[in-house]
Every structure is written in structure tokens, then in C-alpha cells.
């Protein structure tokens, strides 16, 4: 098989070919490294490519297979792009920030460890909004990532690098983190699949924190099945994370396979009244309506549900997140690691000068906002009140899930916008996450699956499927059924309609 053909295969297909020794893991790794070399100058999905380590891992996988040993996981030998927010001993970890420029951590994140143990080939680290704060990847200190569907546009964020790597066929799998939509919104913008597991489902140990009570790592892929396969590799209890849930990982691969059979009879799907209509782009709404019809055709029963407190979600989120950020990012002080500027002055001056030079404007804005919200005299009115809103949103979800097995909405209110359009208007940037934030506040599971292209601009739209805590199986089932039906109607996966990228010779 040619490299050009290999890179268009799904992870499941690649695994099958590697494990049956039809192709070697090294060939697969090389094909993707070649693709990165050819297109990443344009896309800028990667901050670091670890070609040598990737080929070494692939070589080990091949050696094991050649020796007759069973693959260490169903994804052994399949390449993956890792968001630069997970620490890795063999690659720098920058979190998209100058303050960690070149930092090489002395330890691996639990997710990194699990990927390595599964024999997955980590190609490199992907671009992101600095400290995962942003919805466009424009706030990366290392320059924006471009959307493979239209390189003048943003790929979403903060995990724009991971999503763009998938859409540009630089990797069949990626890892993201989702604090308020950073996996799902880029998935919607790039026509890929992104899953935010239940909070506590995937270990946060070694995930450089944005907002501790909201952050959750998850799988990104081009198909629902691939996401499920990756989900089972990275999920599960970790004694190093006190908020990790000590129960069995939901059987999401089985659920995805079941869903692909295309029967959703007996399932009730709730349409959240508050997530749609005003503020949502016409083409997004149109795509969503078509998806609802598709789900009905699959036998699901649609019910309208109301979640009245979602309207306070954005406000609560932008109090809780900056508060936690202001504390989590205090450790970047030039004393023990990372950037240090201002030679010769006092420790206090060096700290302030380094933080000023090392953090970008969005990070500083949120640190100041969070410092304000936690200040003596404001705590109850802001942070305390926001935590109560969280309770109300959780209750809204509980009520909705008493009427429906899963909930659906558009993933994002708009399709990908042009680079530079919202970068100086924080509030309009924040509105991107309107539909994704409530699930982070409630800690439940949610994912985005492509629902076609918006009529007016031909850009991808995402369907968000939300499930109760630890309800990933039914969520994957619905997403897989919808994906299969949509692909069948559209004569192929949406991702195959991504335009050819300009290649660097």
C-alpha cells in the first residue's frame, strides 16, 4: 500500500493491517511522518514531532508481532498525535506557552504511560491555545493552527492541533482535553469525532491543569469506532488522581459496533430547547435539524427537554475556570522550571517579569479575572454562587435524563470563523462554547460527531450527543448509528470531502 493510501485508513483498519502483518507499523509511522513533513508547514498542527521515538516504538511493535507475540492492545502500532498538555519524558511539553518553552518533564502523564503500554506510536505533540484557554488555537504562543477545510480559518480550540492533525490525515488518532469544549468544538470545526468522557473517567495525572474541576482528557479520531478503541486504552481508575472514578470503563467499543448496526429503536433522544435557535448560524441549525430527522429514521423517539439554568452556564464557567486557573498557574514563577527573565533582580521581580513575558494576553486576562473572583469579599458572590449554579445545571441534566437516554444539540453555534476575527473580542470568543460548557459544569459525558456541511459556507458542523455520568456506552451507540446512517446517505465519510492541502515539496 502506498503511504498516501495508508494515511486515509481508519485506526481500526490500520491496526488490522499491522496486526495481520500486511503492513508494518514502521511503514505506517513513516507514512504519517512523511505526511506531516509535507503538510504541517501549512496546517501547523504539531509543536514537536518525535520522529525517532515514533519509529523506534513502531519497530518494537513489529518485532513483537514478528516474534509471534500478541499485540499489546487493539491499537498497537497505530500512530497518534498527543496534545501538548500531557507531560512526556521524551518530548518537550509547552502547553502552547512561552513560559514552558523547551521544558522537558522528568515524568510521564498517566495517559502517556497508557498510550506507550498499548504500543501506540506517539508522533508528536500538537498545538493548542495557551494553557488550553481559547476556542480557536490562535492563543498559542507558537502561532495558530489552520483548519484543513479552509486554511484561512481557525480549527477550533483549544485542541485545534489535535483536530487539524486528524483532518489533515497527519494522524488517525489524537488526544485532546476538554475543559469547556476543547475536544468537541474543534471536532465540529474540522469534521472529526471528539469525546469528552465523564469527569474522572480518564486520569488527569500529568495533564497540565487549566481548571482542575472541569478538565478532562479524551479521545479524538475520524470515526466513532476509532474514538471508542482509543477511549478504552486511556480510560480507567488511576490511584494518582484523587478524582479518578474507581469503576469499570464503559464498554464503548462494543457499543460503537452495536450502534453501527443502525437500530436506535426504543431509545429516547432529548432535544435541549435552550441549545439552539437564536445565536446559532442558519447552516448549523439546518444541519442539526437534518440530523434529528436521521435519528428518527433510525427508530429513536425525539423528545424536547428544557434546561432553564443553562443560560447561566457561560457566566458560571467564566467564574469557576479563571478562579482555578489563577491558582493552578501560580506555580509558573521562574524558580524551578521554565522561563526566567529579569536577571539580577529580586525573586519577586523575576517572578512578575517572567509571568508578564511568559503568559499571553488571554491567560493574563483570566488570571486577573480569577484573582478578582476569589478575592476577599467577592468569593460568595462569584465563585460560591457559580458553584451553586453548577448544582442547578446538574439538576437540569438529571431532569432531562429522566425523560431521555441521551441529549443532542449542535456542538458549536457557528462553523469555523476566519483567523483573526475574534481574537481581540474575548466575550464573542467565549460564546463559541455556549453549547459545550454545561456538560463540563455537570461533569457528564458528551461527544461531537460530524453532521455534514453548513449550507451557506460548506464548512463542517458537529452534532453533540450528551449522556449521563458514566453513560458513555449509550452515547457511543447513538453516535455510531448516526455516523453510519449519515455516511450512507452522503455516499461516504464527511472527512473524505476535505480539500487537498498544498504540499511542501
Amino acid at each position: 500500500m502506498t503511504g498516501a493510501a495508508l494515511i486515509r485508513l481508519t485506526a481500526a483498519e490500520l491496526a488490522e493491517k499491522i496486526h495481520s502483518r500486511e503492513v508494518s507499523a514502521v511503514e505506517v509511522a513513516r507514512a504519517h511522518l512523511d505526511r506531516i513533513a509535507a503538510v504541517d508547514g501549512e496546517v501547523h498542527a504539531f509543536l514537536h514531532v518525535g520522529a525517532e521515538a515514533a519509529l523506534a516504538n513502531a519497530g518494537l511493535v513489529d518485532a513483537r508481532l514478528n516474534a509471534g507475540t500478541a499485540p499489546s492492545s487493539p491499537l498497537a502500532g497505530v500512530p497518534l498525535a498527543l496534545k501538548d498538555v500531557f507531560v512526556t519524558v521524551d518530548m518537550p511539553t509547552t502547553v502552547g506557552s512561552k513560559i514552558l518553552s523547551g521544558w522537558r518533564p522528568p515524568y510521564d502523564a498517566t495517559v502517556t504511560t497508557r498510550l506507550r503500554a498499548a504500543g501506540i506510536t506517539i508522533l508528536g505533540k500538537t498545538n493548542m491555545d495557551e494553557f488550553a484557554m481559547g476556542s480557536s488555537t490562535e492563543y498559542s504562543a507558537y502561532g495558530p493552527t489552520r483548519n484543513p477545510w479552509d486554511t484561512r480559518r481557525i480549527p477550533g480550540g483549544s485542541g485545534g492541533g489535535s483536530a487539524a492533525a486528524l483532518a489533515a490525515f497527519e494522524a488517525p488518532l489524537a488526544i485532546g482535553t476538554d475543559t469547556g469544549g476543547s475536544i468537541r468544538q474543534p471536532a465540529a470545526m474540522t469534521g472529526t469525532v471528539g469525546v469528552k468522557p465523564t469527569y474522572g473517567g480518564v486520569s488527569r495525572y500529568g495533564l497540565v491543569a487549566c481548571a482542575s474541576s472541569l478538565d478532562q482528557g479524551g479521545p479524538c479520531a475520524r470515526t466513532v469506532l476509532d474514538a471508542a478503541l482509543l477511549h478504552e486504552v486511556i480510560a480507567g481508575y488511576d490511584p494518582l488522581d484523587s478524582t479518578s472514578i474507581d469503576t469499570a470503563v464503559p464498554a464503548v467499543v462494543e457499543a460503537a459496533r452495536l450502534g453501527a448496526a443502525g437500530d436506535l429503536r426504543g431509545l429516547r433522544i432529548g432535544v435541549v430547547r435552550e441549545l439552539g435557535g437564536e445565536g446559532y448560524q442558519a447552516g448549523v441549525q439546518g444541519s442539526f435539524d437534518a440530523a434529528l430527522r436521521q435519528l428518527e429514521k433510525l427508530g429513536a423517539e425525539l423528545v424536547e427537554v428544557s434546561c432553564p439554568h443553562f443560560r447561566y452556564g457561560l457566566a458560571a464557567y467564566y467564574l469557576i475556570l479563571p478562579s482555578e486557573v489563577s491558582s493552578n498557574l501560580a506555580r509558573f514563577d521562574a524558580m524551578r522550571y521554565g522561563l526566567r527573565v529579569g536577571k539580577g533582580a529580586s525573586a519577586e521581580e523575576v517572578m512578575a517579569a517572567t509571568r508578564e513575558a511568559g503568559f499571553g494576553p488571554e491567560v493574563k486576562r483570566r488570571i486577573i479575572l480569577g484573582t478578582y473572583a476569589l478575592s476577599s469579599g467577592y468569593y460568595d458572590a462569584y465563585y460560591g454562587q457559580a458553584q451553586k449554579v453548577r448544582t442547578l445545571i446538574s439538576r437540569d441534566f438529571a431532569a432531562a435524563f429522566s425523560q431521555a437516554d441521551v441529549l443532542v444539540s449542535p456542538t458549536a453555534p457557528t462553523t469555523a470563523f476566519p483567523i483573526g476575527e475574534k481574537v481581540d473580542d474575548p466575550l464573542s470568543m467565549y460564546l463559541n462554547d455556549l453549547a459545550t460548557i454545561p456538560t463540563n459544569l455537570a461533569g457528564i459525558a458528551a461527544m461531537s460527531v460530524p453532521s455534514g456541511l453548513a449550507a451557506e459556507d460548506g464548512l463542517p458542523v458537529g452534532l453533540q450527543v450528551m449522556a449521563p455520568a458514566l453513560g458513555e456506552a449509550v452515547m457511543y451507540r447513538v453516535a455510531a448509528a448516526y455516523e453510519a446512517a449519515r455516511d450512507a446517505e452522503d455516499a461516504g465519510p464527511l472527512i473524505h470531502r476535505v480539500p487537498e492541502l498544498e504540499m511542501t515539496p
Partner: protein
Amino acid sequence: MTSAGRVGSAPRSAPVLVDYDEVIERFDPVFGLEVHVELNTNTKMFCGCPTGFGAEPNTQVCPVCLGLPGALPVVNRVAVESAMRIGLALRCSIAPWSRFARKNYFYPDMPKNFQTSQYDEPIAVDGHLDVALDDGSTVRVAIERAHMEEDTGKSLHVGGATGRIHGAEYSLLDYNRAGVPLIEIVTKPITGAGARAPEVARAYVTGLRDLLRALDVSDVRMDQGSLRCDANVSLMPKGAVAFGTRTETKNVNSLRSVERAVRYEMTRHAGVLLAGGAIVQETRHFEEASGTTRAGRRKETAEDYRYFPEPDLVPIAPSPEWVNELRGTLPELPWERRRRVKSDWGLSDEELRDLVNAGALDLIAATVAAGAPAGEARSWWVAYLTQQANTRGVPLESLPITPVDVARVIELVTSGALNNKLARQVVDGVLAGEGTPDEVVAARGLAVVSDEGALVAAVDRALAAQPDVAAKIRGGKLQAAGAIVGAVMRATGGQADATRVRELVVGRCPPVGE
């Protein structure tokens, strides 16, 4: 070396101190104590790093206690249990639900730039400790709370004249101590102590130290910083009810300093107040050498710690069963032991107090527990060993001999294998690091001469050398036997059993017929 700032740059005149009697005549002191205790757990509060004192710098660290990006805390179960046991021993209520919070402030010895500490939801509240004063009376000190937190790293200041923070060119940081579990125990304001306030302060810290030692939750070494005390002091005019402005004195590193620091602050406050001045609410540092306090650096703006619940940890909600199980593990507490020992050993109040003050009570009790009779155990610790401790200038408990060793020596004497003189030599050997009592006996060849034949020969030689004394004994003057016993003891290098020698002497000199 920990950092300790110097007086700010503005020149300050020496404080006017007021005679202590006058202070008491004019004012009522109010004070409170915050004691930090480092737990003796194997590992730190939130990670599996060791907690031992004195390791090479930055060799007891990991991503968690170094505050590396991505690292997460997990609570040490034994630290929580120690906190609850301390709370129970202080007769506190154990909170059915408590949490950690983040105390946010920047300081280079704190790797995350926030301290993970309990704030408004501590694990133990509302207790008390009855403390014994020198005159045998008891004062009840009310405990506000006991909560868990983590220690900071240590900084070493390089350059400048003093090795102190002020004038240093740069600092070196060691995070081995960062994350060691701390319990902070806070008293309620203590009022009504009057002139005895400094003494009550010392007695409280002493009582707390003894309690923590009995619980075996900490090394409680003030000299190594495993027990640290901050003293809050204020004065109010005699008869007033509203507390005056308080100062918080840190760096109080010995029991004696607790008393001195409280007393000094009382006289300093009185000086300021009587001169018509006002006390500034501030942190002060105790100077061991001069027995005085000095102001810390004045802060530009009031600290705002921006506390919020630690999102990386989950609540601590001990079940009643767990709490009861821990209650069952409480050892005999110091005051209970004192009461028991007093009646078991038939001590007077005064005798008991002397033992307590000498720090000998626990050691004697442990010696008794190791099988020695109480009288002998007491006599060894309060006489010979106290002498040795004084000579060496160390507290009794720091002598390199254990209660088990002492019990063994007593056993050897009782069995006749050693006499008192030899026993002291054995103890000297143990103190000199020569090993256990049995090892010292063997190595120094200190066994009492018990070869009957050799003893009889020595006795006969001594009688022959002093025929006049022998005649006196034969004549019924048995007290004269002492001279012969002495000669035999000299001849055997002190290794004979004097009692047996006396018997032999008398036996070899049968009375002349009547």
C-alpha cells in the same frame, strides 16, 4: 537555615519595657498559641516521598511535592488518622465532613505558590487540654481547632554578612521538607492567667508536646523544627472586656522561649501602651540570644489568600466507626499516666512534679514496663542518669541509653551479677556507645567475682593481714567487718559481691566461745 527577615530599613528606637509587676497591675494579658507539628509518617501529606530529616537536598522529592505541572495530590491515610487521633486526645469533635482548601500566596519555598491547607472546614474543633503548672495546679486551655496542612521547603541565603535573608545575594532552595504533613493546633484566646500567662504558655506547649509524644505521631523536636510555636499576645487594661491589638511572635524554638517570648511581648506592649502609643498588629520574630522580639517586614498591602476548596482533592468524611476505631488506639495519655503512677508508686504531689519537671516520668514508666521495680527505676533516672545528663548538658531523654537498658542493669544488680559500683560502670559503657549492658559487661569483663574459692582465699588473706580487726569480729564487733570487706573489694578490683563478701568474712570469724 530558614529565612528570617530583618527589621525594616526605618530606624526604630529601642522599646521601653515596663516592670513586670506593673504590667500585671495595669493590664490583663490575653494570649493564644498556634503550634505546628510535623507528623512522623513514612511519607508526605500528598505523595509517597520520604519525610526523614537531614537528607541531601532535593533527594526526597517527586513531581507532586515539587509542584511540577500536571502533578496531583493524593491524601496520606495515616496523616488523616494522626490528625484525628490528635483531635480525639485533645477532646475535640471530629468533623463528619471536612475539606482541604488552597491558600494562595507567592513564596519561593512553596512549589505551587499555594499551600494546601484546611481553612474553614478543619478536621477537629472545640477541644481542650488540661495543663499542669509548677505548683501542681491545673489550667484548662480551650482548643479552637486542629487542622491538616503541608510544610514548605527550606531556603538557604547566600552572600551578605549574616546568611540571613536581608542582604543575601541569592537563595538556594531545597524541597525535601515541602509537603511533609503538618497539623496546626490553635488555642482559643487564653484569658485570666494574669502574671502566670508566660508560665501557662510554656506549660501548654509542654503538655501538648508530651501528649503528641504519647500518641507517637511526631518526633516533637523543637530544635529540629518538628514542633513549632507562634505566640499571639495582647494586653487589655485591667477590668476591660475588649481584647487589645495583638502581635504574633514567630521563631519561638524552645519551651523556655515560649515563656520568655510571651513575657517579653507583655512588657513591650505595656511600654507602648503606657507611653500613649498603639500596638501595631504585626508579625514579630523572637531572638533567642537577647530574649527579645523584633518586627518583621511591614507588608505593602494586606494579604488576600483567596482561599477556595482544593478541586484536586475530595472531602474527608470519616464514618463514626472509623473515628471509634481510632479512639480505641489512643494510648494512656500523659495526665492519665500521671494519675496512675502517683497512686501506683505512692508519690506525693511534690515528688510527682519533680519527676515530671525532670522529664523522667515517661522514662521511669518505660523502665518499669521493661520489668524493673519502680523504686530502682526512679532512683537510676533521678540520681545517676540525671547527673550524667546535667554533665553533658542534654535533656534526660537525649541520653544514649534506653529504659530497656536501664531495666537490664537493674536486673543484673538484683541477680547479684553486678554490684552498684559495677552497674554504674556498665551504664557509663552504654552511654559511651559501647553497646547494650550485656555487651559492656562482656567487653569490660565486669562480672562480679563469684568464684567462691577465690573469694574465700581473698577473705582469708585480708583477715591475716589485719589480725586485730579479725579479733574484734570474733569478739562480736560485727561492724568491724566493714574494713575487711573493703580490703577484699579493693583486692578484687571492685568486682566482688559485697554482700556475699560480708557473709564470708563473718563466717570465717566464728565468735569465740562464751
